[in-house]
């Protein structure tokens, strides 16, 4: 019983996506699939889920060879794949989305509206999300969307569930719910293939792990037997040490070198405003639970929620839209690559030089040099950007902005869904930028990420947001996961006024 995958290969033209991948998973097992960008995890997942076809190899599910020709076909066999890019319809309601693969009907033909609400309600109740019923998906926060995505998968009663990076944008309290749901599915004998980059979750949720590298399956190990560093070495093929060093010495900022002073940052969903002082060479991490205004904070600074007034190096100015933000040498890197990052149908060169040439009107003499300097894996500069893996696409976007030599870099969960190697590369680029005297503000749903990136430079802070306010500012050795966690879930409401005075000081 279970699923046995043997010798699967898939090529796109000359590029080998998967070569002779093999693994077997038992009934009731949660298997992590771990690998760097472009290692073939997603391709393998899509092949099993019937979204793309394989070139060769065999898949046997419950002792029967399967060869799904379409997702519909796979769903009939209760093989469900859920992934970030392939799921929700923003024009439909939450319950319609959850039920769309099997819409309840009455008298055999007509839509049963109550049936849809009931069916969706049952799943959402397990997730504590019943208040989402009746809303359109376009109104939801990204994190809530991921939960709805999972709900959509669960109502289909999967026997084999493939989760492709669904948790990379979930916040802590959601991860616990996901954990509970998956354990429940496991007890019913469901096989779960879990693709994620978050080590902590993998250790909590998964029983075993299969490592993929360059389209090959390197090996399968019981999850608890391998340390994080060992797994990393297996992924990259050479031994490397992760950099989770906490609390290097920090210098507290003095009032003198305030670089940007923003008196009023609107947080629209809470109707609150916050103020912020940004110093030169500083990395500010923004932490907090899901949707407490973190990304609205950075988007507002980029002029995305209307005109915003600030003092840059003592000079008053107003930023009314991203164009004027770019003029003041701001940069914005979003975790939502498809929406705010890459120009989909364009090649690498166009993507990397777009801001410099089109906004700054500077001619870029060698886009190739630019691409090479950010460790991007690519074939040639005339490649369409979507041919690259997600992490490499994000590196191109980062390269585009860093090449403009920004004074203030705003990053909204920039490492969402990219692997640890690429993530480390990006962090180092950000730290380099800060060392050159620019400021970096980075939002992340991963506290570990904030702890490590703030430890990479001398001057850094982590601000924790709660209900549209800055509830706590952590500096120096106070920046630890435990402290961030404590501040983002204040049991008794903290004295916000007092905390905010600290910001003004």
């Amino acid at each position, binding site marked *: 019983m279970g699923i046995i995958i043997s010798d699967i290969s898939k090529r796109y033209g000359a590029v080998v996506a998967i070569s002779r991948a093999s693994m077997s998973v038992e009934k009731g097992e949660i298997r992590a699939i771990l690998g760097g960008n472009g290692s073939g995890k997603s391709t393998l997942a899509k092949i099993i*889920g019937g*979204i793309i076809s394989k070139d060769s190899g065999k898949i046997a599910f419950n002792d029967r060879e399967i060869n799904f020709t*379409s*997702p*519909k076909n*796979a*769903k009939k066999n209760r093989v469900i*794949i859920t992934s970030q*890019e*392939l*799921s*929700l*319809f*923003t*024009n*439909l309601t939450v319950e*319609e989305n959850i039920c*769309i*693969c099997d*819409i309840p*009907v009455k008298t055999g*033909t*007509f*839509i049963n509206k109550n049936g849809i609400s009931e069916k969706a309600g049952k799943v959402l109740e397990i997730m504590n999300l019943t208040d989402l019923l009746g809303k359109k998906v376009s109104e939801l926060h990204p994190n809530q969307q991921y939960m709805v995505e999972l709900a959509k998968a669960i109502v289909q009663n999967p026997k084999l569930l493939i989760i492709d990076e669904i948790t990379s944008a979930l916040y802590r309290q959601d991860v616990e719910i996901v954990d509970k749901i998956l354990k429940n599915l496991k007890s019913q004998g469901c096989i779960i293939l879990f693709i994620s980059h978050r080590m902590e979750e993998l250790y909590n949720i998964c029983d075993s792990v299969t490592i993929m590298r360059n389209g090959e399956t390197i090996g399968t190990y019981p999850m608890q037997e391998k340390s994080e560093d060992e797994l990393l070495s297996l992924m990259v093929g050479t031994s490397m040490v992760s950099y989770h060093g906490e609390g290097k010495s920090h210098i507290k900022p003095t009032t003198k070198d305030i670089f940007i002073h923003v008196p009023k940052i609107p947080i629209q969903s809470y109707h609150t405003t916050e103020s912020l002082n940004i110093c030169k060479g500083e990395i500010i991490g923004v932490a907090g639970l899901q949707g407490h205004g973190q990304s609205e904070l950075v988007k507002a600074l980029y002029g995305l929620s*209307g*005109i915003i007034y600030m003092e840059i190096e003592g000079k008053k100015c*107003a930023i*009314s*839209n991203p164009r004027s933000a770019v003029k003041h040498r701001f940069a914005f890197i979003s975790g939502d690559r498809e929406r705010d990052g890459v120009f989909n149908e364009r090649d690498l060169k166009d993507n990397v030089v777009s801001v410099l040439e089109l906004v700054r009107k500077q001619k870029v003499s060698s886009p190739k040099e630019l691409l090479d300097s950010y460790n991007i894996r690519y074939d040639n500069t005339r490649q369409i950007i979507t041919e690259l893996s997600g992490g490499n696409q994000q590196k191109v976007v980062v390269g585009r902005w860093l090449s403009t030599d920004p004074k203030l870099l705003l990053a909204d969960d920039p490492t969402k869904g990219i692997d640890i190697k690429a993530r480390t590369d990006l962090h180092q680029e950000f730290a380099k930028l800060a060392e050159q005297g620019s400021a970096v503000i980075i939002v992340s749903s991963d506290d570990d990420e904030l702890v490590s990136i703030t430890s990479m430079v001398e001057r850094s802070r982590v601000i924790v947001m709660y209900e549209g306010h800055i509830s706590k500012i952590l500096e120096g050795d106070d920046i630890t996961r435990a402290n961030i966690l404590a501040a983002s879930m204040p049991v008794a409401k903290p004295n916000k006024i007092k905390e905010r005075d600290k910001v003004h000081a």
Partner: protein
Amino acid sequence: MLNIFKKVKKWSTLPALVLFLLFLMIYIGISGKFTLSFLNSFISTNTPAICVAIGVAATIIIGGTDISLGSIVTLTNVIIVTLVGKNYSVITAVLLALLFATLAGLFNGLLIGVMRINPLLTTFATSTVFSGIALWLLPYPGGMIPYFYSDWYNSKFLNLIPIPVIMIALPLVIWLIFMKLPFGIKAYALGRDVKKAYASGINVTAIRLLIHTFAGFASGIAGICISASMCAGNPKVGDTMSMNSIAAAVIGGVSLSGGVGGVWGAIFGSLFLSILISIVVSANMSSYVQSFVQAIILLLGVICTVMASDKEIKNKITRLWKKEDGQNE
């Protein structure tokens, strides 16, 4: 109560309905006549446009489009005239023409759904094919249909409901039934994102096939109505209808990017268009200025409805104003 208000405010048909009522008022103000017979003739002359608008709205909702519907209307008209000229009974001619129109839609559906050719290109090509066939059958306006056909069209079913209303109801009711089926939700899902629809196990080919066939059927009904009001054949009669119907759908809140809006909007959008034409005509302007003025008002109408339905665009425009304020400070 507040909830109902909010729902009405969000209703995508609302801007088109308001525009239509507003211009109806203006028309009544200008011409000073508003009688039942005016209403009757207004509906019967606009029935063809409404039917085509319903058809085109359906194809736009599933993320495609169809610019061949006007040619299908022409084809229907020409087939009826030709068959009647060959001594077929009117009813046989009408039913055969409707069958051909539906088959023409099916043909579009096969190319778009099964062969996956871009809908705009496909229907651009087929529109030429259809009007080519029409010109081949009837190279110049002419032919005769017995007048009882026109009398029937202007009569009332059971002395109660005007026949044109029933003709509009045919495609409308079919569409409303679609919307009551799981098919309806899936069609809107498809309109939003093809890839996601496919990954969700939705039968993309079948939906496209069915919707384009439906659009062909709706245009066939339009052709039947237009033949009844002319009682003659004209190989150019549907030429302007394709684009006008798309404009009507957009005014009615149907988003060209797919998945948003409904056929009610398309109906009111097309009513607004024709009342607009009536106003411009009754203002006694020279015919050169007429279409210019008409187009300007149409453009304003499209901008209004898009602004009312698209929050993001609205925000952008309001932000532009705010920016000006900011610079003054």
